[in-house]
């Protein structure tokens, strides 16, 4: 009897321990599930929201800084100096954060593009990540600035990097995004051209419809597709050649952007013509 009671007590303890273990396991699994869900949710849309939010904070801080700066220049008191130092630090911190979140938005946009290969995407990532790293490190060291002069120096350092290097990466990425969109649409159209060509060959063999004019049109459309590709390549090479000391970076970017827009116009034109060809095939 005593042995049986001992056995029952042991069993009870084991069941109780099992319950505690089970509870811990459930908690761990739940934590893992939550982290997995939050990790999955981060996409371009979320990255862009972060950027917009930080940009609005920057704009607010910019107003505060400008107000405090004018007070400092007017009164030049010890308190106003202390205030301007605090507000300048806040502005520099948020400015770095805006650049970081903007670069992340570009990265996420590129990641979600269907028209770029993984190798092409990696090329963009490595350049974006280099800039991101600089601004992250720059932001981390800002709080160690001891004086207004230190903050001015830190700001100039960030500006120099942004002007000479980050802008190039930004413009290159923006053109990459535009040409990636073109590339995807072009690939889809090329697939349909291939299918249509084989169908037209079939019709020619049947001999019940004259398709010679349609065949010539398709050759023209293929040439337009090639021109579209050339325009995108030209846009990328143009923007890639922007030098670090180039003054008219925006002008060169706009030139490259125009090339991608011309490329897009070709794509639109080709698709419309293809729909016209389908109409021709459907009528006698």
């Amino acid at each position, binding site marked *: 009897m005593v042995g049986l009671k001992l056995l029952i007590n042991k069993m*009870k303890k084991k069941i109780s321990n099992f319950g505690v273990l089970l509870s811990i396991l459930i908690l761990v699994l739940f934590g893992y599930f939550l982290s997995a869900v939050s990790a999955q949710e981060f996409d371009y849309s979320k990255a862009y929201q972060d950027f917009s939010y930080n940009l609005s904070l920057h704009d607010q801080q910019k107003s505060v800084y400008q107000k405090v700066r004018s007070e400092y220049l007017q009164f030049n008191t010890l308190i106003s100096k202390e205030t301007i130092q605090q507000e300048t630090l806040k502005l520099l911190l948020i400015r770095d954060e805006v650049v970081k979140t903007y670069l992340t938005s570009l990265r996420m946009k590129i990641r979600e593009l269907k028209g770029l290969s993984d190798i092409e995407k990696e090329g963009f990532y490595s350049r974006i990540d280099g800039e991101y790293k600089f601004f992250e490190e720059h932001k981390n060291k800002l709080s160690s600035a001891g004086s207004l002069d230190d903050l001015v120096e830190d700001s100039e350092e960030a500006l120099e990097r942004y002007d000479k290097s980050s802008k190039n990466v930004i413009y290159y990425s923006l053109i990459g995004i535009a040409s990636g969109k073109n590339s995807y649409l072009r690939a889809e159209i090329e697939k349909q051209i291939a299918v249509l060509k084989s169908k037209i060959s079939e019709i020619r063999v049947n001999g019940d419809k004259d398709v010679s004019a349609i065949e010539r049109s398709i050759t023209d459309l293929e040439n337009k597709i090639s021109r579209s590709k050339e325009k995108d390549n030209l846009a990328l090479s143009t923007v890639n050649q922007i030098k670090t000391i180039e003054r008219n970076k925006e002008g060169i970017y706009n030139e490259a952007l125009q090339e991608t827009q011309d490329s897009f116009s070709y794509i639109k034109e080709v698709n419309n013509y293809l729909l016209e060809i389908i109409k021709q095939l*459907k009528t006698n």
Partner: protein
Amino acid sequence: MNNNNLSNQQPNQTVNGEQSPVKETPPVNTQQPDNPMRVPSNKPIIDKTIINKYVSVVTNLWMKLNPAIRKVIMITGFIFGLLLFIVIIFSVSTKIGGKVRSNPKPTANIEMSPLPEIIINPSRYATDSGILAIEESLKIIEKEIGVTIINDLKLSPPNLLWDINFEE
């Protein structure tokens, strides 16, 4: 139902037998008709004894369980309740966070259903499945082209304050 007085009198006629230009209001029917849908009030909707029976069965089962097992069930139940509470709080907080920073939603475009295409003098390829499939794919591409923005101004570089100096 009880409209005998009304049926004897002509419409628009007074007691004296003259025609009245004013329309008479219909008489109010004081007797309510029987409502076949009415539920008898003396019959309870749910029998309380059934509920009590189920409660006692569940209580007996619960008491028959080993105290250790009851403890495990209670702990697990408590944890699940806690997790459910965390999930609700988490989802509510993310929704609120999302609302604060959300961008204005674009107005929904009302898509008109396209009119059916009428082909005059159709060829034998008008109903060819291969041709129709290509046409369908090209129309999908056309829609994608329609929503593609090459110069996405949303992604333009931010306008930041870089000029930090303390000289007048």
